[in-house]
């Protein structure tokens, strides 16, 4: 099956082509939806086959599958293949992408029912899956970059899917503005990746992951160069995975249809940054500076996004800030060298965040496109299935034992303490507290309390089975997914952390480099680990109880609190004014300089001034010279005289 791995990206590509060319002509929603879902589902089955083959192999053999298709770019000594690398990391990502992708495709059949651009939606969705699979299966940076920019393109197309709708945001009026913003901000990150690729090739003479990371593991590389390479790559990650300083696009990306938010802006694409670092764990492990910066950026993003999430009223925006925050968690894990924990959280987060987004989509669907939680309330009885699954997802993301989020979050927090510092752990716990708080705030405002919607116009209803079935499957995964990574502390010392074992060979080099850097790592007692675990669990529960006290029953308390802390509330409500700062510091001045100086002065006045000026000078001198040719013989004689005098004078005096 591993040799057939090219089928995994190929099937969604075929789906895209069929729907792209014939979707409109087919004029059949069910057929189009089926083609798209089967394409991704088929890819999942092939990936599953490859995965099963890998499980039967030794852990060394698992890392050695490379399937080369053809030469892509060949110039001079530069050579890049279209080639796929199947190993523990890429197959895990592939399973997540195609598995959750299939569920979201099925869900979309119900969600997009009746949309006039139904086929276009599924074409884009298939194209996205194709690009995402190239990103993770690539055996080299350039092919990953194709996927990397390709998912950016699909994100662009899908955010602007309803191109004639308005969308509110800072300097954003249309959904198209949000789409463009996402693409451009991502491009700033891609710029970093582009330069990093140049540097990598210059130093390693190759852009294939295995070659580069093997060479890096053998050491002897200039520390400054490694830091530059990894920081540039990380710049790309901050774009794709919405971290500081490039995280501003993700909340606006919610302009797209909700299944898109679930698939692209929660479960898969935004975790590409974590993938890129995990894929190059050896490179990153070599630079302590980069690792420290990743940790700092991760925890800061996690805290900032979590605090913003507390005051948002748009159901999808709360989830968007939550995603940014959770991604920050994953980067913090990478920064402290807990690669497995980061990938673990990618997986569990994919389960529960896809669930929550699809759940919110079900709510929006049932509420006739309403997204403001101020205008919801009491929906529990109208959409029981959506409610229960949403509740399960909310518990999971809050990190309550034994739901999936508990295990991955706790592994990250523990590593933050053990490999980082108590302060890092404290900041992480604070972010986790906020998470539990705003998620239950969201849950209560949506499903509990009085019904604040207009009963004459809005008749909430449960969604069809194509939508609720994926919810249930994701809910089950959200509940039990954590069992793949049970820590030793909870298994009584038994070694049953499946995921850690699975990924161990991938991160072996990186881990040994990190271990050599931290020779003074002290051993922590089991009691400490339990104590921290209990503490973080207790704090999450406090967050939930606090949210319950404020929001479970409708009350005026939240509004009073907002009024009391007006300044703080304003900062959070306006997202720390980052958009405004960027606009006023970068965008507006650049536009003004380009318009008023570069174009109107340099181009029009200086360069054209010289060009037109010299043309005019020639015209003017020609005009004056013409006057000499007057046709009057006396003038000619006079001029001749002057000439002769001048020549004689020159001969005499020179």
């Amino acid at each position, binding site marked *: 099956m591993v040799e057939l791995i090219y089928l995994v990206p190929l099937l969604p590509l075929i789906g895209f082509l069929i729907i792209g060319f014939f979707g409109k002509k087919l004029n059949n929603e069910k057929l189009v939806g089926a083609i798209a879902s089967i394409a991704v589902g088929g890819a999942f089955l092939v990936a599953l086959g490859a995965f099963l083959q890998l499980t039967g192999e030794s852990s060394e053999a698992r890392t050695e599958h490379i399937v080369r298709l053809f030469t*892509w770019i060949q110039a*001079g000594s530069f050579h890049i293949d279209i080639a796929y690398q199947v190993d523990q990391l890429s197959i895990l990502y592939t399973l997540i992408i195609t598995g959750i992708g299939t569920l979201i495709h099925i869900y979309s059949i119900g969600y997009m029912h009746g949309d006039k651009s139904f086929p276009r939606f599924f074409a884009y969705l298939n194209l996205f899956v194709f690009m995402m699979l190239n990103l993770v299966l690539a055996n080299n940076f350039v092919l990953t970059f194709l996927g990397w920019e390709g998912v950016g393109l699909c994100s662009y197309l899908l955010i602007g899917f309803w191109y004639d709708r308005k969308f509110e945001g800072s300097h954003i009026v249309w959904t198209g503005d949000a*789409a463009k913003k996402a693409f451009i901000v991502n491009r700033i990150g891609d*710029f970093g990746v582009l330069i990093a690729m*140049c540097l990598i090739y210059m130093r390693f003479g190759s852009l294939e992951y295995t070659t580069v990371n093997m060479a890096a593991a053998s050491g002897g590389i200039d520390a400054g160069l490694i830091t530059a390479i990894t920081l540039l790559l990380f710049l790309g990650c901050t774009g794709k995975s919405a971290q500081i300083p490039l995280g501003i696009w993700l909340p606006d990306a919610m302009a797209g249809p909700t299944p898109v938010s679930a698939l692209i802006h929660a479960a898969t694409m935004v975790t590409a940054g974590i993938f890129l670092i995990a894929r190059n764990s050896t490179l990153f492990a070599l630079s302590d500076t980069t690792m420290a910066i990743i940790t700092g950026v991760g925890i800061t993003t996690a805290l900032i996004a979590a605090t913003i999430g507390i005051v948002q009223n748009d159901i999808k925006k709360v989830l968007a800030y939550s995603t940014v925050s959770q991604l920050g968690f994953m980067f913090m894990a990478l920064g402290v060298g807990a690669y497995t924990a980061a990938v673990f959280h990618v997986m569990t987060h994919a389960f529960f965040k896809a669930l929550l987004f699809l759940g919110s989509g079900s709510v929006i669907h049932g509420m006739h496109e309403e997204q403001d939680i101020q205008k919801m309330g009491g929906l529990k009885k109208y959409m029981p299935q959506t409610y229960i699954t949403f509740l399960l997802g909310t518990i999971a993301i809050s990190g309550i034992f034994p739901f999936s989020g508990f295990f991955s979050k706790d592994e990250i927090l523990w590593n933050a303490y053990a490999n980082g510092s108590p302060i890092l752990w404290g900041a992480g716990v604070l972010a986790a507290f906020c998470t539990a708080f705003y998620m239950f705030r969201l849950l209560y405002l949506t499903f509990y309390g009085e019904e604040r919607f207009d009963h004459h116009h809005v008749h909430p209803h449960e969604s069809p089975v194509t939508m609720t079935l994926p919810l249930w499957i994701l809910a089950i995964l959200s509940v039990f997914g954590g069992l793949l990574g049970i820590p030793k502390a909870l298994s009584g010392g038994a070694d049953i952390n499946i995921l850690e074992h699975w990924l161990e060979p991938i991160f072996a080099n990186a881990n040994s480099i990190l271990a050599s850097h931290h020779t003074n790592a002290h051993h922590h007692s089991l009691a400490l680990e339990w104590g921290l675990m209990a503490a973080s669990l207790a704090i999450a529960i406090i967050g939930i109880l606090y949210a319950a006290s404020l929001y479970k029953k409708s009350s005026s308390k939240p509004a009073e609190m907002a009024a009391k802390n007006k300044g703080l509330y304003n900062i959070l409500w306006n997202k720390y004014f980052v958009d405004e700062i960027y606009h006023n510091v970068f965008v507006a001045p650049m536009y003004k300089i380009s318009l008023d100086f570069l174009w109107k002065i340099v181009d029009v006045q200086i360069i054209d001034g010289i060009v037109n000026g010299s043309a005019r000078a020639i015209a003017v001198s020609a005009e004056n010279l013409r006057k000499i040719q007057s046709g009057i013989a006396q003038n000619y004689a006079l001029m001749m005289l002057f000439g002769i005098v001048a020549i004689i004078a020159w001969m005499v005096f020179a």
Partner: protein
Amino acid sequence: MPHTESAGMLLLTLLLPLFGFIAVLFIDKAQEKAIRFTTMMISLLTFGFSLPLWFSFNSSIDGFQFYTNIPWISSTDSGFRIGIDGMSLLLVLLTTFIMPIALLSSFEPIKKRVKEYYAMMLLLELGMLGVFISLDTMVFYVFWELILIPMYFLIGIWGGKDRIYAAVKFFLYTLVGSLLMLLAIVWLGLYAKGLPGGHFTTDFLVLREIAPSIPMDIQIWLFLAFALSFCIKVPLMPFHTWLPDAHVQAPTAGSVILAGVLLKMGTYGLIRFNVELFPMAMHQFAVPIAWLSVAGIIYGALVAMVQTDIKKLVAYSSVSHLGFVVLGIASMTPEGLQGAIIQMVNHGLSTGMLFLCVGALYERRHTREISEFGGITKVMPKFAVFFVIAILASVGLPGLNGFIGEFLTLFGAFQSPFLNNPWFSILSSTGVIFSAVYLLWMFQRVMFGTNDNPSNHSLKDLHRSEYWQLVPMVIFIVWIGIYPSTFMSKSELYVQTLIGKVEKKIFGTTKYPLIKAATSVEPGTSNEVHGGH
């Protein structure tokens, strides 16, 4: 160099547009249909005849193929020496491919002086093909100047409101450059004459052999004379201001050809003459030329961003995109040069297609002001697909053609031992961000949002002729993006040999294969070596 057996094919490809030009002159000007039909057939035939060149071209032979020499002026030893290598092959095919598309785009909009228009188009094709296949400096110069005539009239007669200003500006700008080039050509001939046993010649192959023996200070002047002419044509910042005016005023087909082929004459000339004849001088000027490219990339992008006229925006984007080509040339690495060559083709396709799209909008609304549009996707969904593909190709999205060229030129410049400074690539890479800014912003203002302007409510989507223009472009845009080897393998050997020679000359060693070492050969004897004509 002896005549190659199938040289007739190349000659025929060159002469077909000339036959067509004469034929059109003999058709009664009222017979507009016949004129259009003849021109179209001739251009398709030319494309048809250029295809065997592609298939019988041998990529594993260094040097020119389909070579032939028809003596012209014996006193200056000038002759129709023509032949192609991998680089010119690609550009010849680009020319013959784009021409029918440009003609097709003229059928609707060109209503006045139809006969003259199509005659000029064929003359233009003759000139462009001549430039790319001449191996004689005098003949090259003639073709180079020949192009001015049809282009001047195309802008001046069938252009927009300020067409006269634009046409004159185009004419003067180009003329200033080419006069210096003529001086350099004459000087080279005289130098050949001055060598022991030599005589005046304009044979490029002979001149290429003797050029390295010219004293360095004079080489520099010759280099600059050629370079100025080519840089104006590219156009490299700060010689670019003729381009936006020419583009905005030119009819759609004029813009397509201008962007698609004409600008490549500049970059082609830089490689063919500046790099091949004066590698040492190129070595000295690589850094300033690279700085101008970087300035052009960023400057062109920033100025494109603030334009309100779609066509002017695309015109400035050309300034930016051609900067990548020149940067690749200045890098003098195989990667950079290969990137530059494929990027010439890419820019021809994607910017040509952008102009076709702008033309389609102009056809329907007779305006190009961005603010006049909005929400056009609603009424022209199929057009939107093609427009977005052209834009994505232009912004260098991997998987489409633009990425291959941009990536390789950046890559080449980064590795270049001649430039020896990563900042050229780093600064140029910001162009990748800016191109997304101005093109996507324009697309969003034109195509997204609601269709509020009543004049846009009933715009018709693409018609059949427009599909015939756009679909072939898309095919090659995707093809080059996914499997560029089809095209890049043609010029691979040429580039490696050229860089090998250059590196040998400057560093004394090279890792690239040298088919034959470049040595200074006496023109008298070398003429016999290359004899057979």
